[in-house]
């Protein structure tokens, strides 16, 4: 039986941190392909603004909008806002997103990092985004994918409550399991994206497409998923295809394949040991099993998949 160190990770939301860094790698690659620097970031900063700081530091983005639903605590958000270049827009995403304009002025990166379970309001946001984003702009949506109930029929019922008219009768009941839930959600999201973009193409005689780049799941507590991609035209699609991004980054996905950020529970000493020996093949492992002090091959594999993004924290205090 695994000990409590196998169940609880003592560090702070490491999966989220890994996800953010993966996203940065992805954005860097897309920026290289597009060869175009100017970017605007629209996100949900909460009061920590972690993603804002990271994107500002990594890419020097200075045009940033944080959407904050809690209008009542405006003063607190203004206090916590770490950068002058972050504009605060108060209201729900449903309220604020349609108010934002200037989507054709530069590349936009939108990350709607919701913390609640998937629901219809998210699909309204996706509709607004897909109506407005230009070719080359990216958007990602994160949400909780757990739904109340043990049996699939119960989960299906609570999912139906959340998505209202968007509920897809064609998706069979046996898909409403914890494991397959991300796929069900992806179907609804894809439908909404494609419907909106098809309409745009029909009206503008355009040929815009949505190309999925990410489909991740992770768990720092609640089961979360992130999905999103980029709007492309024929030229950009070809460039991305030629860049072999999907081979280079295992965490990327353009289909139903889910990359699960699964962090093995390892001590710092164990991590150091593995790092020194990477890459470890199954052959290597079997040959020198004793030098891994009981760390399992499966754990090493999991770590290998994410080690470049792993948060190598140490505890510290800020005295201000």
């Amino acid at each position, binding site marked *: 039986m695994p000990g409590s160190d196998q169940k609880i990770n003592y560090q702070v939301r490491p999966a989220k941190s890994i996800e953010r860094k993966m996203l940065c790698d992805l954005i860097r690659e897309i920026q290289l392909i597009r060869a175009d620097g100017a970017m605007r970031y629209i996100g949900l900063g909460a009061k920590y603004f972690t993603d804002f700081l990271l994107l500002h530091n990594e890419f020097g983005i200075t045009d940033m909008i944080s959407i904050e639903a809690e*209008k009542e605590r405006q003063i607190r958000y203004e206090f916590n806002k770490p950068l002058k270049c972050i504009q605060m827009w*108060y*209201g*729900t995403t*449903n*309220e604020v997103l*349609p*108010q*934002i*304009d200037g989507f054709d002025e530069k590349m936009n990166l939108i990350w709607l990092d919701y913390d609640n379970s998937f629901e219809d309001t998210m699909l*309204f946001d996706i*509709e*607004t985004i897909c*109506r*407005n984003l230009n070719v080359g702009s990216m958007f990602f949506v994160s949400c909780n994918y757990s739904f109340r109930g043990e049996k699939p029929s119960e989960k299906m019922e609570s999912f139906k409550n959340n998505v209202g*008219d*968007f509920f897809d009768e064609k998706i069979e009941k046996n898909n409403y399991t914890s494991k397959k839930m991300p796929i069900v959600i992806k179907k609804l999201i894809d439908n909404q994206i494609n*419907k909106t973009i098809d*309409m*745009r193409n*029909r*009206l*503008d005689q355009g040929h815009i497409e949505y190309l999925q780049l990410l489909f991740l799941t992770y768990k720092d507590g609640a089961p979360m998923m992130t999905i999103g991609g980029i709007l492309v035209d024929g030229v950009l699609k070809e460039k991305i295809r030629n860049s072999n991004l999907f081979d280079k980054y295992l965490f990327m996905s353009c289909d139903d394949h889910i990359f699960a950020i699964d962090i093995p529970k390892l001590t710092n000493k164990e991590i150091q040991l593995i790092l020194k020996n990477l890459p470890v093949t199954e052959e290597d492992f079997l040959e020198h099993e004793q030098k891994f002090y009981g760390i399992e091959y499966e754990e090493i594999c999991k770590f290998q998949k994410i080690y470049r993004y792993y948060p190598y924290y140490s505890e510290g205090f800020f005295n201000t």
Partner: protein
Amino acid sequence: MDNIVKASPTKEFFVNMLVRDILLKQAIIELIDNSIDGARSIRENNQYSGLKIIVKFDNSKFVIEDNCGGIPLDVAANYAFRFGRPKTVESSDTETTGIFGIGMKRALFKIGNNFSIHSTTKTTEFQLNLNVKEWLSKDDGDWDFSFSSYNENMNNSEELLGTKIEVTDLNLEIASELSSEEFEKEVIEHIQRRVGLDIAYGIAIIINDKTLVGNNISLIDNEEIKPVKEEYQDGEIKVKILSGIAPREGKTYPPEKAGWYIYCNGRLVVAADKTSLTTWKDMENKSSGIVFHNNYAGFRGIVYFNSKHPEKLPWNTTKTGLDETSLVYLRAREKMLEIFKIVKNILDDIRKNTEDKDDGIEETIAIMQGTEMTIENVNKVKENRVVSIKNVSVITVPNVTINYKKPKEEAEELKKVLGVKSYREVGEKTFEYYKDAEC
């Protein structure tokens, strides 16, 4: 046998079939539109003061007379009475409503069997009389009318210019409609709504001696609550979308006035729409938006499509509705859907605020004045996407609701004493009395 399959239209088709697509009031508007098109061609920038359209009807006669410039002789001879618009006609330089080349004929056929048209321009004049039954009895290949008289190279004085159309031998059901007071009232309201913009520009429309008043939609437009506005060019069509909150009328927002209003070259083609034709959810379309509810009675949206090429505007041939498949309209609709979200959200916010803590926002907005959206005022509104209750400084006193139960008998007694009709008023009056007596 000749290798010919006959597909040419018959006159009966035009006289008996096409008229089924329009109502009498629409036929009358069609004729008024022709006069307004005349006004547009002689006056620039919608300055119509001094121009008049006079309509008179009873159970034996229908007359429409205007001083809007008249129909030039060559236009009458070559285009005005053609069935359908010849390909060769050049577009005019004004934003007219006449386009399809069936409007006037269809309207006249709808009304009666005998019509006479007299029109005078600066240099020409003509008289055309037509008996429809005689025209029908002529050979099917012979579609043309002939002038009863005409003159060219004249120098007519200003006050003579204009057109007068008289229809007699009215169709049976039309005669009875035209003699009903109910119909007169209905047609006046219909015309005021449909061509309200032009009346506002100064053209006088007088129906059976009653002068019509134009009405525009009013929106709240002040420092704190501004309408959302988006303006863009779609090919040869200029599109303006405006949406916001209507001022309250007395104690309520009449739900029948809520919704979208769509104008094509100044002619209202859709009024107070609350269906999926615009941005609402209904039986036809469940996938986006919300179903109309009285909570949204303050919602107003206005879309203006303007073009010097009226045939490209998204209206149907009777100009009484939209061509729902028009790409111009569908492109606008995508933008309307987003704008709708903005205005819907503020309406939701207002209601939520009232339900949660009523700090007076609803009442503050309710007493705001509206601005009539005449063309000048529409142009004054700046492009804007932000509207929020955050910007509203409350000027009314916040309210609370007090609830309590009392024996019915006693409450009934108080009702009588206070001379009021509801328990709610009993509560209000007794509260006011106590405050006055003790505070």
